[in-house]
């Protein structure tokens, strides 16, 4: 899908012109509908077979949804009561407050910890996944079996959610941010391995031929022909994952793997709604700031290219 960037103001122009068209032509077209229907019957008839198929698909989807809602005991009474409760919580959330400065500092420290977890976890995953990217790339790894096994291995790791990894790592290294770093590292390792190998498979072969023609060895091919092509792509992907990991790092604290999530789940469980709203606002602000910074760096590294994830 290509992205067309409209110059500023162009859309407004189109809109105002379409409004003019509507005002001028709309009533005339409507008045003439009978004649139009007679002249272009196929347009008004439509496509009955396609329509029946679409209706059947939608009916199936709705039926499955109905089954799910029935099975999970959805009812208007329950939803109404729940929404009433939520409204009540919302009124208790203002104004956001931590209930004292010492607690504010605790929150700020926990938020810093969350960002640190995301950063270290993402970088560790990138470093670990780097060699595996080459192993899983078809053009570097000539043999089929190692390529296939590496791919399946990465898929398996990717199938486990960050939060499950966090629980497992807590059992191994104990509660705290270190388990969080390892959790982010594990789940991103699978994703990075796949993305890196795709980047390597997509490289231009001409530089490789050039190095080979100049008498370069296999490692020289990788160093001077492949690396310069993939490093900007990899840097972009790592930054993108750092952004999204700041979000997921907020929740691994819920199971005890460090960061702001611990305070957030604690505040929710003890119904300290003012603290909840403050914590959520802090997370939103941090994520926005990091998005801005990393978007800047990303554009500086890779130019205006879009990142496929």
């Amino acid at each position, binding site marked *: *899908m290509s*992205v067309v960037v409209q110059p500023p103001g162009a859309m407004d122009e189109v809109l105002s012109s379409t409004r003019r068209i509507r005002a001028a032509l709309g009533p005339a077209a409507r008045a003439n509908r009978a004649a*139009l229907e007679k002249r272009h019957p196929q347009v008004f008839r439509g496509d009955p077979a396609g329509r029946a198929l679409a209706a059947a698909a939608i009916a199936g989807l709705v039926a499955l949804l109905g089954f799910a809602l029935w099975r999970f005991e*959805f009812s208007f009474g329950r939803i109404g009561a729940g929404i009433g409760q939520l409204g009540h919580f919302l009124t208790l959330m203002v104004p956001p407050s931590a209930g004292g400065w010492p607690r504010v500092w605790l929150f700020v420290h926990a938020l810093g910890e969350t960002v*640190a*977890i995301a950063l270290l976890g993402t970088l560790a995953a990138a470093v670990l996944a780097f060699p595996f990217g080459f192993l899983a790339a078809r053009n570097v790894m000539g043999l089929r079996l190692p390529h296939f096994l590496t791919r399946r291995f990465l898929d398996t790791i990717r199938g*486990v959610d960050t939060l499950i990894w966090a629980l497992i790592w807590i059992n191994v290294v104990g509660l705290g941010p270190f388990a969080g770093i390892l959790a982010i590292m594990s789940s991103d390792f699978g994703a990075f391995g796949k993305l890196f190998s795709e980047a390597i498979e997509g490289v231009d072969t001409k530089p490789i031929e050039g190095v080979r023609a100049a008498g370069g060895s296999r490692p020289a091919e990788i160093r001077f022909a492949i690396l310069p092509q993939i490093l900007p792509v990899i840097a972009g992907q790592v930054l993108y994952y750092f952004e999204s990991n700041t979000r997921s790092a907020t929740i691994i604290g819920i199971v005890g793997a460090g960061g702001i999530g611990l305070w957030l*789940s604690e505040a929710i469980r003890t119904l300290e709604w003012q603290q909840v709203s403050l914590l959520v606002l802090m997370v939103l602000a941090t994520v926005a700031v990091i998005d801005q910074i990393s978007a800047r760096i990303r554009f500086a590294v890779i130019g205006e290219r879009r990142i496929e994830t």
Partner: protein
Amino acid sequence: MPTTLPRPPEARLAELARAHAAAMRSQQRRTLAAAAVLAVVVVAAAVFAGVDPVRMFGRIGAVGDYFGRIFVFDGGPFAGRPVVVAPGEWMWGLGHWAKLIGDTLLIAYAGTIVGAVAGFFLSFMAAKNLGRHPVVRIAVKRLLEVCRTVPELVFALIFVIAFGLGPMPGVLALAIHTAGALGKLFCEVVENIDMRPVEGTIATGGSWWQTVRFAALPQVAANFVSYALLRFEINVRGAAVMGFVGAGGIGQDLIEAIRKFYYADVSAILVLIIATVMLIDLVTERIRHRLVDGEIRA
């Protein structure tokens, strides 16, 4: 076919090497500076997060230990032997777990559908080319942003208190997050449509609803379905952990097995989750490829 190139004279080589070094110097300096900044940030983060390298390497052995342990029976007639010797004993709870995994898939499905429908309507309101009122447009954009930035598990925690334990808060939490994420993607698709059909519909007297239905929808439908399927894949993973906070699905049993050190159960449930996720990924990928191919042909 290897060929030998004539080697240039030494003086010429030295001159070339010097020119190369001069050309590379500024780039190298920039790379070094970036590496130094990164190193400082990493060390600062490590100190902040309390990472102790000594303790870290001391625990590395425990990693293999844990993974060795979850694939060995820790009790019963097969105690001490690897789980593969008695698959029936290993998967003793298969019926119960399969039902919970079915629930997990249903939670993901319901959350995706409800969220996609909400995102669908919101995206047309937020799109620059079809949104009717700038104030509404910006308000909807901000709403979508909040919905997708707050993690679904945080919504789930709050909803569990408001709606009670069970899959229902899980579905609602996934739906809200999905509405935010899909609303944004849908909005980008809508903003890139060809405007000529829109103008045509408006010129023949179509209302806003008719414009969306007859001019925009045919252009975006395949893309929307593809994005929704992708989101479903993500939501299956998300629904698998909803049980951690009491919001239904397989997560409840998994967290219990991990917390109570039922090692063989942990591996059994993990294997089931991974198999399910892979299967779903495979199926949705097929459908998505077909949709994209159909779009190219059409």
